[in-house]
Structures are given as C-alpha cells and as structure tokens.
C-alpha cells in the first residue's frame, strides 16, 4: 500500500487544471473515476507515477482530506484493515478506475483504497466475443 495520488480539492476543476498546466508546468495525464460518476483530473510534472488528482470540491463537504492509497489487491487489503478494527463506509465496489473501498478516520479524513485495473485492452479484445 502506498500513496500514489495527492488530492487537490477544487470548486472549479477546469480552472485549477489550467493553473497547474499554465503556471506550474504540469501535464494532463488522464482521468480517474474515484466515486461513481465523479471524475478527477490527473496531472504530473515528472516521470514518476505520483500524480496530482484534482477532485471536485463537493466531495469535501463531509471530510477534511482525501488520501488515496494504491494497493495491488483491494479485497485482501480491505480484509486486513477490517481485522485491525477499522470500519469501512461501504463494502468494496467497482468504478471505471478499478476497485475501491473507503473509510474515514476520527478527524473526518477520508481514506480510499484503490486497486487500479486496466479494462480497456482485454475488453476491447473480447468485445466481439
């Protein structure tokens, strides 16, 4: 489990993205669906796979920070964390980025376990099958 995305909440995602691209030299690297139908913009300014994720401000109503933890196996990690006594907000579920599970700490910070899954290549290949 490791931190891969640094989240930046914004009420105006397009404006925030322009700021990062124009003034800070970041490049747009993609999008990530973290909550159903909520897409975050991903930006990076180097070759590492650590990205800035601009998340919609409305997601921040009930929590202070959103920390995205990348994992190779979401269900297994979810199960291990549950065994340590953490209560998750939901059971793990599927979004277009892969599989996620969320929990909140006592301070109201939201933690997201994200197992990224690549569907496109396989699904394209089997689309006709």
């Amino acid at each position, binding site marked *: 489990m490791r931190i891969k995305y640094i989240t930046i909440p914004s009420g105006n995602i397009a404006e925030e993205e322009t700021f990062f691209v124009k003034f800070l030299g970041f490049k747009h690297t993609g999008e990530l669906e973290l909550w159903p139908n909520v897409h975050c913009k991903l930006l990076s300014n180097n070759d590492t796979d650590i990205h800035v994720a601009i998340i919609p401000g409305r997601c921040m109503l009930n929590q202070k920070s959103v920390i995205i933890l990348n994992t190779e*196996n979401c*269900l*297994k990690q*979810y*199960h291990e964390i549950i065994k340590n006594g953490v209560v998750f907000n939901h059971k*793990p579920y*599927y979004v277009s980025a892969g*599989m996620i599970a969320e929990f909140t700490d006592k301070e109201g910070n939201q933690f997201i376990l994200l*197992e990224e*899954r690549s*569907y496109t290549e*396989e*699904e394209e*290949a*089997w689309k*006709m*099958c």
Partner: protein
Amino acid sequence: MENVLKLSNENRICSSKLTYKNVTEVNNNFSLHVNFDGNEKFVLNKKKLRLFPHTFLAINPGTLYSDIIDSGSPVQKLSISFGKGFMDDFKTSFLKKDSSFPDNYGNHLPSQNLAFNETIFPLFGDLKYNIEHLAVLVRSNCKDELLLNEFLYHILLNYYTLYQKDVLFVEESLKDLQFVTRKEIYRRLSLAKEYLYSNFDQKINIYELSTYSCMSATHLIRSFRQAYHTTPHQFLMNIRLKHAEFLLKNTSYPINKIVNTVGLDSPSTFIKLFKIRRKITPLKYRASHHVIK
C-alpha cells in the same frame, strides 16, 4: 500438483497443474472451471467441449460431466464449487432485488431452480482480476475463510453481472421478437458461441455450426448478426486472434506454429489481421510484452 481448499460452508476451491485427469461425476453444486494454461476437455451430458486459456466453463448442479486432461504440458486451472447455502444467500441478498433477471420475474423468493447458462465464457474484467487474486491466495495456502468467501462472493457477483449483461444485450438486440422466442434464440446462439470457443483451432464450416446450434445456416447468421452485431466468422476470427495474442505473450512459438495452432491458414492473413487490430506487427507485439516482463 493440486491445492484443494474445502471451506466450512461447503464452498470448495481447487487450484491444479496437471498433465492427466479423468473424472466423471455428477456436479453437486454450481461450479466454475477456469483455464489459465493448456487445454482441457469436458463432456457435459452429451456435449463435448474444450476449454482453452482465459476462458471458463460454468456447470449447473445436477449435471453429469467428465473432466479430462491428457496433455504433454501441464494444464493450469482453478475450479470453484459454490455451496448450496452460499448460493441461496447470494440469491436472497442480491438477486431478490433484481426483477430484471429473467428467472426472477414475479418471483421474490429464493429461487431454488435458478440456473445459469451452462456454457463457456471469456475471462476478462473484474472477474479475471478477482479469480487471479484468488488463485494466488489458494496457491499460498491461505486458510482465512472470511477472506476466501469475500472473494467467492465477488466472483459470483462478477459472473452474474457478466451473464446478465450477455442476456440483456441479446434481449435488447432482439427486442422485436416475442419473449419466449428471444429466450430460445439466446440459448441456441450460446450453443454456437460455445462451439466456436471450443473448436476455434479447427476448420469450422457454417453447416457444422448450425447443426450444433439447432438452426439453419441462414437463420444462424442472421440471428447472430442481429444479436451480437457481428457474424459467426468475425466472432471466430476474434477468438483466434485473442488466442494468438496469448501465444505471442506466453510462448516462443514461431509465427507459423501460432498460425496453425489457432486454426488460421496463412501467416500473411494473420499478420494483416493482427496489424489491423493491434496497430503493430505480431513480432513487435511479442517484443513489447517480453520487454515489459
């Protein structure tokens, strides 16, 4: 080599790598057989099927089946058998809410006779990820039943979603037909698909295929195109190309051998088709995957 995990709720998971197996039995519980490498034969009642890598076969309870492996190289597979209580819990907790499922129309009690389609499906998407994770856990001798059952629940959910998507896709495409006719055509088209998955490495003619799927050749082609927006021939070529990709990634077979193995006639046709689909040549595709590995 065989790792078998029997869970206390009668779920059973078996990961194996075998060169020989010949078992005939009545399937007690709903089960999924996933092939990762090699090929395996199944006889289900009178149907003779072959299972190739990255496809899986669903078998309903009560089916008499034979599972046969007789191969020079080991066949790597994972079999999952879901206990009756586990299936009933799944149905009550999940299917009960879902009135769109054909077997569930007007029936909100746990359905005792809910039968999934006993056929071959390709392994992809979340089902593939979850099954691969489960295979790793089984090989590492994981004894944590809660964790294993969590995976089994998700695998069943993924399978159900895949099946339902397939049914609904065909239902939508054939919406002008009556419900009973749609259902029957779906069943026959599933037979045609399973024949193609099973025999893609052979020369297949449309008459064999139409006999297997109990339709005339013209009716089969027309219904197949209407239901899946492709012809049986294009569908077959897609399976062949997909299997060729697997061989390019996982073996060092020369192109000629791959072409023969997947049932194609000429290397030039294969290269042309591959380039159209992948936008690179087969050898460059192989090289890029070996570099990644």
